[in-house]
Every structure is written in C-alpha cells, then in structure tokens.
C-alpha cells in the first residue's frame, strides 16, 4: 500500500494487504477454545512476583531496629503479603473474563470512578468517610479497607481509551486527538485537585503510549510534546506552594547546592546518601535498617523504598529491580505484539505506559534526577490499592497473553506510513 493518502475522517480502516507478521514476533502454539498458553506474559508475571517479594522484604528492612516480628517479618510487611495475595487474586479475576465483557464494563466503571473522584473533592464530606492523608483527599474509608479511586481509575481509563481507539483512525489527525485529550483531562484535573500531582501526571505517558501504538502520526506527537515543553513554565504559577518548593529544591540540588540538604532537599539528599551508601553489593540487614532509621528517611515504605533496596542490596539490587521492570515491560509489549485483539493490544500498552512512567519517575526521585512528587514504586511500595492496581494490570497482560490468537480480528493499527 502506498504511504497514507486517504480521505480525512474516514471511519473504516484501509484494507491491509501486508502479510501476517512473522519473525521474532510471530506466535505459535496450541489453541484451545481461544485460550492459549500464557506466552511471554509469564515473564510479566514472574517479574511482578519478583518485584512484589523484593517489596515485602524492603518494607521489612525499613522498619525501626528492634521492631517486633512474626514469622520473621514485621507486621507491616505481613500486611503487604496479605495485599499481595489479594492482588494476585485480583489478577486472576480480571484475566479470566472475556475481554468483551471487560470492554463493556469499562465505561460505566470509569464514570463511577470519576464520580468517586468528584466525591473526594466535595467539601462537606465527613472525615470518617474521606480522611486526608499527607494533605491529600485521596482515600475513601469503606470500613473494612480504604480504597484509592485514582488507582482503579487508571485501569478504567486505559480500558476506556483502548475501547475508543480500537478501530478508529481519527487519532491520525491532530484534531482527532482532542477527544482523547478531553477524556484524559477529566481524571487528571480531579486527581490534581486532591491534590495528587504524582498520580495525575502518569495519565499522560499512558495516553502517549497508547496513541503512539495506535498509529498516531509521529510528527503530531512530537509537536505536542514540544508545545508542552514550551508551555510548561506557564504552568508554574498554577502549582501549589509546596509543589513549587520541591521544584525549586530539585533545581538547586542539581546545580550542586548542598545547603538545602537539611531542609527542602532533606528527603532527596537522604535518599541519595542511602543509595550511595549501598555501594556495589549493599550492606548487612541490621546496618541497613539502622541507617534507614537513623537518617530519618521519610516515606521509607512508600515513595523512597527504592533507596532502601539499594542501600540493602547495593548496585546489584538496584539493577535487579530495573531489570525486573524491564522484564515486565518487555513481556507486556511482546504480549501486546502477539495479540491480535486491538482492545487488548492497547490495554496492554496503556498499562505498560503507567508502569514504565511510574517506575521511571519514582526511581528518578530516589536517585536525585527528578523532583519529589509523591509517587510509589509499582509492586514494591507499601499499599493495598497500589499493589492491587499493579496486579490487575498484570492480570490484563495475562488476559492478552492467553487470548493472543483469536477470535479473528481485523488487523489493527497498521497504517503503513513511516515509523
């Protein structure tokens, strides 16, 4: 087919004459009632389990020296194990149903979660229902547990966008990207108002990955990124004072200013010190625990858990974590490549975007190349909602992995022009 000249606004995809894809990304394997063996999605599951186990141990190390333990783990680590079990169960639950059902449920779920996000912002909601934590109204207390709607909203969002894009071509035009922007703006705005800038900032990379995979023109995407970069300074006045402080603090730190090590940049300098102290192979467990405790590292179970891992296991541990994330991402992308269902393709790409962005930003925070914006490390940081969401995302990858062959689908996202 010649390079992409077609009437604008065409709703049906051009007829593809390219042969089925073979080579490194070709699939093979037995087929039983549309379900296949998991394929390379096993790599994703394995990586998720490795990261989760590392997370449990790192949470245990982050406890003060001399803390009480049961079964060799501190109580908070035991809770994380419980969350892990719940998460794995959730992954199984979401992997089993037919993707059509999930696709059908996505929009109402998204609307419901948007409603929940609005509910979080309603001022007269009593504190026993919505208890602010660290200054953010992000959790709803259901009695048995607290849920964080923004986490579940990520999944619903990906499903909605994947469902929207699956056979469309409007996104190949600049104007056609506007509806996607509008859909994305709603959760971003609501989550930013909580305020939770960290979570809201993850939606954009996920959208970017999905529209890129869905065939949006590269020059449009580059243009948008360039405009965003140029317009970013204009957004500075809109930031909260503490957010501005953190941004300024990071700039000063990158410039080598150590005078803020004990105030604004305390968290970042302490994290870097712990990372560096780990050296190549890390420190003994008790020493690592003592260091984490006595350096008073904030959020040692959550945002800064990566520095605990590197302090304990050194460069080797840090590279292992990075390797595990790469394995998760590669497994997911290969699974997406093997899958023919466009909905599942984009779903996998979307969740991969979230995981990759979150991982990059969190680790970047811990090693001093990005400002502290309150983002957890996927699979590793303490927290039921976060862990459940990550395993649900893994479950979606597994769902794509076991359904990569059929039912037969029209070729999707093949526009034959350019990269």
């Amino acid at each position, binding site marked *: 087919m010649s390079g992409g000249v077609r009437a604008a606004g065409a709703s049906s995809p051009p007829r593809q004459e390219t042969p089925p894809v073979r080579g490194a990304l070709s699939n093979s394997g037995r087929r039983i009632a549309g379900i296949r063996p998991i394929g390379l999605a096993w790599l994703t599951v394995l990586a998720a389990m490795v990261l989760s186990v590392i997370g449990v141990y790192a949470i245990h190390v982050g406890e003060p020296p001399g803390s009480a333990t049961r079964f060799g783990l501190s109580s908070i680590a035991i809770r994380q194990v419980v969350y892990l079990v719940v998460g794995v169960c959730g992954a199984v639950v979401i992997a089993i149903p037919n993707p059509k059902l999930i696709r059908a449920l996505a929009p109402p779920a998204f609307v419901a979660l948007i409603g929940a996000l609005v509910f979080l912002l309603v001022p007269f909601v009593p504190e026993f229902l919505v208890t602010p934590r660290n200054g953010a109204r992000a959790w709803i207390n259901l009695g048995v547990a607290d849920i964080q709607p923004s986490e579940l909203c990520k999944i619903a969002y990906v499903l909605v966008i994947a469902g929207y894009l699956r056979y469309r071509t409007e996104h190949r035009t600049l104007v056609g990207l506007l509806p996607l922007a509008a859909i994305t703006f709603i959760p971003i705005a609501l989550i930013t108002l909580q305020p939770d800038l960290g979570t809201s900032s993850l939606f954009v990379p996920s959208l970017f990955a999905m529209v890129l995979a869905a065939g949006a023109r590269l020059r449009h995407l580059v243009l948008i990124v360039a405009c965003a970069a140029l317009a970013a300074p204009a957004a500075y006045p809109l930031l909260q004072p503490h957010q501005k402080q953190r941004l300024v603090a990071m700039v000063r730190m990158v410039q080598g200013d150590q005078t803020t090590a004990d105030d604004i940049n305390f968290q970042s300098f302490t994290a870097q010190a712990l990372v560096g102290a780990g*050296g190549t192979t890390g420190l003994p467990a008790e020493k690592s625990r003592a260091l984490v405790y006595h350096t008073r590292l904030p959020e040692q179970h959550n945002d800064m858990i990566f520095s605990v891992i590197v302090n304990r296991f050194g460069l080797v541990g840090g590279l292992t974590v990075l390797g595990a994330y790469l394995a998760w991402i590669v497994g997911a992308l290969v699974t997406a490549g093997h899958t023919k269902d466009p909905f599942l393709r984009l779903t996998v790409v979307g969740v991969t975007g979230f995981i990759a962005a979150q991982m990059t930003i969190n680790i970047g925070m811990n090693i001093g190349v990005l400002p502290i914006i309150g983002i957890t490390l996927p699979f590793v940081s303490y927290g039921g909602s976060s862990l459940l969401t990550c395993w649900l995302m893994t479950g979606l990858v597994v769902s794509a992995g076991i359904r990569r062959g059929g039912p037969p689908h029209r070729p999707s996202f093949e526009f034959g022009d350019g990269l």
Partner: protein
Amino acid sequence: MPSPQALIPSMFHRRLALLAALVAISTVGLGVQLGRLTISQGDALRDRAESKLERVTWLPTQRGRVLDRKGRVLAVDRPSYDLAVDFNVITGAWAVERAGRYARRVHRDEWPKLAAQQRRALIDRYLPAYESHLESMWETLAAGAGTTPDVLVDRRADIESRVDRMFSAIVRARTKSARRAQLAMGREITERIERRIEEQASRPIAEQRSPHVIATRVDDETGFLFQRLLGQTVELKPGSGDQPTDEVDRLPGLAVRDAGDRHYPFDRVVVDVDRSRLPSPVRRDSTESVEVEGVAIHLLGWMRSGAFAEDIERREAFLSESAEQASTSAGEVLTSVGTDRGRYLPTDAVGSSGLERSAEHRLRGLRGYERYRIDNGSIETHEPEPGRDIGLTIDIALQARIQALLDPELGLARVQPWHGEPNPTMPVGTPINGAAVVLEIDTGDILAMVSTPTFSRDALRDDPASIFESPIARPALNRALEVPYQPGSIVKAPILVAAATQGLWQPSQHICCTGHFLPDRKDVYRCWTYKRFGNTHGDDLTGEDAIKVSCNIFFYELGRRLGARGMAEAYAQFGIGESFDLGVGREFEGVVGAFGAQGEPGERLSPADVIFMGIGQGPVAWTPLHAAEAIAMLARGGISIRPRLVSDGSAPDVREVTLDRAAIDVALEGLRLSANDPRGTGHHITLTDGTRENIFTAPGVSVWGKTGTAESSPLRADTDGDGTIETLRSGDHSWFVVLVGPEGQPPTHAVAVIMEYAGSGARVSGPVTNQVIHALIDEGYLPDAREPSWRAEAVP
C-alpha cells in the same frame, strides 16, 4: 541498511519497538545515575549516611599554664563546679507533683471518684511538707555556694522569667509554622485543626525539662560534698497520724557539673618592704606588708566567657595557616568528619587580652571525644589534648616587688615635697602613675614590666568602668609599652654614640656650654642649669662630662650636626619605629617626627626640631621598654637583642648595629659618672632642708645611669561631660635609666623607670630605680652585700 519497515513490516510492532526503545533508554539513564551514586560517590555518600549513626560526646580539655622564668605557675585552669537544679524544682512544681503523687497513693481507692476540686484540696493538705523540704534544700545550697537564700530566690526568679519568655516565643513560632504548613498544603484552618496546632505548639520545651545553673564555680570541697549528698534520701511526713511517710531525695533535682575556671595564683601578692631603705622623708625602721593586686595583669591578660564572632574567625584563620601548631602531639586537630576539636562552644572561656589572647591557640588545647556507634554499640575514644604551657621571662616575685614599690602608700609614687617645683595639677600627696622595665642584658629577657596603677580581676568583673573610664589613672594602659613619652635627657648617651658613629663628633672633641645655644637668644635652646641657676657647665666639656651633668648645649650641638636625616637614623638605630611584638596587647612603636608621618627618615624634621631632639625633646617619643633596650645596647657594645617576654627555647634575636666603640666607652663612662660622681645629675637627691642623700644605696653593685626630665604634653579630658576640656595633668615626666651589675664587672641588667608628670628625674624616679636594684638583689640577680630582710609571699 534496511529500513525499519523492511525489518519490522507491521507498524504496530514498529511502534511497540519504539516504545521499548524509549523505556530502554530511560532505564539505561537511571542505571547510569545509579552507578554514579553507588560507585563514584559511594564512599562519600556512605560517610554522610553513617554520620547519622554516630553520637559524639565531647570530653573537656585543660588550658595550658603560663609559667614565670622560675617555673612558678602564673595562670592555670582550676577545677570547680556548677550547681544546677531541675526547672520543676526551681518553679516549685516538684512539690505540687510529689504532693499529688502522695495524695493519690494515700487515697488510692477514692481518688478516681473525686472531683478535680476535691483532689486539689487533698494535694494542698500535703503540699506544705514538700514546700518546706524545698526551702530547706535552698538554704543548704545557699550555704554551700557561699551566698544567701535571698540571692537564690532572685536567681530562680530570673531563670523562671527567662524560660517563660523562651517558651512563649517558641510556642508562637511553632504555631506560625504549623499554620503555614497547613495553608501550604491547601488546607483550611478549622477550629479542630487550630486546637490541634495549639496542643502541639504548647508541648514543653527542653529548658523546662532540664537543670539550670543556680550557683557557679563552687570550690572542689563544696562540689564533692554536694556530690556525696546526691542520691541520699529523707523521709517526709506530709500526712498525719498513721498516714505513711514519703521518701524523697535529700536535694531533689540537683546536678553537680564540672565547671573549671582560670586561676592566677600570683594575682594578689603580699610583699614585705623594708622601709629603712627608703629616702629619709619616707623611711621607717620597720617592715611594711604591702598587698598588691593584679600582678602582671597587663601581661597575662584575662579570660571572658563566650566566644565572639572575631574569635571564631581568628580560629579559622589560625587553622588554615598552621594547623600543626594547634596540637601538642601528632594528634588530629580535626575529627574524622572535619570538626575542629578546638572549636568554640557558646559557654567556652576565651582569652580576652594579653597573653591569654595572643597565645589563645597554643593554650587552648583540643577536646577529646567519644564516638558511639548506634548500630553496633562500639565506642571510640579520643583523649583530650591539653593546651601547651607557655614560659615567660618574667620573674613574678620581682614583678610583685616593683609593683609594691610603686604603691603610693609607700611614698615613692606619691608627690613629695622634695620632688621639686610644685605642680598645680599634682599637689603633694597625689599618687603618681608610672612604669618600670627590667631587662637582662645578655639575653634580652624582660624580667619585669610593671605599669601602675594596676587593677584586680575582681574589679574587672565588678566595676569595669573604674578601669576603662578613669581619665587620670587609666589602669588598663600598659605604660611600659603602649604609651608614648618623650625621652628627655636619658637619650643623650645614645645620641652621643650615634653622632660619633656618623663621624660628626670625636671623643677628643670638647664642646662649650654657653648656657644658651643661639648666641643672640637667651630665651630658647637653653641649658637647664642656665635656665634654673643662670650659670653654665663650662667651656670644655668632654662627652663624659656632658652626660654626667646632662648639658643641653652639648647635645643641641650634636643635634645640629646630625641634622634631620642623621637624627632620624640615630633614633632608628636605637629601636624607635620598631614594634617588639610581645603579644601582650597594643604597643607603641616609637616615632620620630609627627605621628603618622610618612616618607624618608627625617623628611619632615625641621632644623629646630632636630636640635631639640638632641636632648630627647621635640617630635620624638618612645616607651620605657625602648629606653631600657637602648641603654642595654650600649652595654652590649652595639648589639641589639630584641626584648622578649615568652621563653620558647629559641635563640635571642640578635642584630649587630655598627656603633663607634670609643664613643660607647665615653657614653658608659658618662653614665657611670652621672650616677656616682657628686656632680652627676643622677648621684643624689636634695631634700627640702637642703640635705643630700645618695640615690643608689645598694652595696656590692656598680651602677651606670642617666636622669631625664622630659617636657611633655599635658593630659586633657572632659571629665564631667560639660563639653569643657580640662587639664588633668601637666608637667615634666620623670625618667631614670640605669645599667647595673656586680661591682667591678660589666653590667648585667638594664632598668628604665618613668613617673608621669612628676618632674625631676633624679628626685622622683631615682629613688624608685634604687629600690628596683634592691629588688634585683633580693631575687638573686645581683650579689647581696646588705642585711637580708625582704620577702614576698603569695596570698593563699
């Protein structure tokens, strides 16, 4: 190279590969930074992190001692103690708390059912016993601290007031900070949040939970006594009848802390003075004990509590220039994390003046420290390094004797009728301020440097105004070193030698004393004898005679011959313009020409100036130390040895000055005649009844000397603040310089004495100088052919 489309035909797959590449690139970037932190910066970051695992406790050190030339301790750290009491005892809250505890114990069953008012009533019932116990404790503390309970009441009130002010300020600051933090997170300050902020802000501060010093610097014995009492308990009976007793600490909340202060054992000395050796008008056939205070205070200086910013800057400059001098051994000045072990803490004592200040870094010492590792419980101890001792060339006993001589009560340092023409600014009986310097000729060691009046350290603490604001006495001034005086006639011997050295006079030349230097003017440039008596010294004066009789005309002539440049060079040869850098404070370097004059030597001297300078008048000024060294140079045959005060084992700083040897012999002969020939100006004093008494009375010694009566600028000040400058003192300064040694041998010591505005050199400074020679004999520097009778004792 094949295109991406050829490599990966599917666009979707190409896009997936692009996404994978982006992730890979960012992951590699993260990996690189991770490697940088763990490998390149790992050691430094580990040190930074591990510094949090250490708790450092500093161990006090001891300041170095200052010793005199015979090893007597002049300054030493003396251990002492501070008594500190917990804040809740100071406020009395302890009593309420203990009474409450007792009440709860005694009424255990009914207590939970009682209302607050009922509980309070029970507490009040038992309170008096505890309050009485506290009163008894305060009385005990007051007695131990050598003060009264009322004084402790005042101190407690001060402490309470200070801590309350501190607490209020901290609560305000905490509240403000908490409110700001809430607003920064976009949260509204509700009533609930406001209450929580107030609760948090009102938590006790450290000062409300810690002891405060109630008595400082109690002696060892008292400190030990209180330490023994710590931990002892007594039984109180707050209740009545069968109610139980309550065991409480004998001295609740008391802590005994090591303090330490700087002790100067010879600050007060009692000197027994044999009055039978004084001039007859003040002679007694008895020994008088004279107590002198502040002995050598101008030299030793004093300490103050608390470092100023300038002290910290000096320390940093010292460290950067010569860190190795800060330690007595191979020990480290800095800890492993770069902390200066000698750094100033807020309550540290610091040398404030004199040698305590100039030698601060040598004396200070280095603290020790214990580094405790939290993770493994290890303790690493670095012992403190005491400061280095400093040895002085001063003989403190000699110093004390000379200071006693200058006590106005003895009579020599008080205007006497025989001193000469009455001085309206200094009637008979007025104390005379002065100074005396004693040098050891062979080494340049300063054996004594006395300036009077002096002052005690107690007065410095209690009444500093009397020291720094007294317009006449000015006790803070070191008159031996920092006050400029015109030399007067004592400079004639050096001028003679300088003129000869410059080839302007030969010993064979005789000069005629015409009574007035200018033939046509009888009112200026006169010889003193012409001025007073209308006669002259004759027309055939040798150099020796000119010095002996102190002929002005002779030296006007030499001045004229020297000229401006020669005169400037002459004075420079004898040390004017050089600072001695003794490290005891300000020094006057001596000046030729107007103060602050720049340019070539003698550039601004007029012919008239130069003539006067031949007799030590005009635009020239020096100090008693310059005078002693100048005359000592003559004794050494032209060798200058920089006077020194600190004995550090180094060789004397010697400089050979080319002087005419024959002229030196003439000058020395002139000085000998001056002191020993009945016609010499330094031979005798004439009393009011016309009788004469020899000035120098010590047998077994030889004396060479010269008097000086130097016209001087009056002392003026506005003492009553009305804007009118009054003349406080006017008149001539009285000088006497001598060389003295065992009889028949070369001189061993040089002495310079000045008595401000006192007039005649012979009549006033002469007897003082004689007593200085006696003091040298008493301390063994000169042979004693007298009947022994003097002793100096240190006050216990």
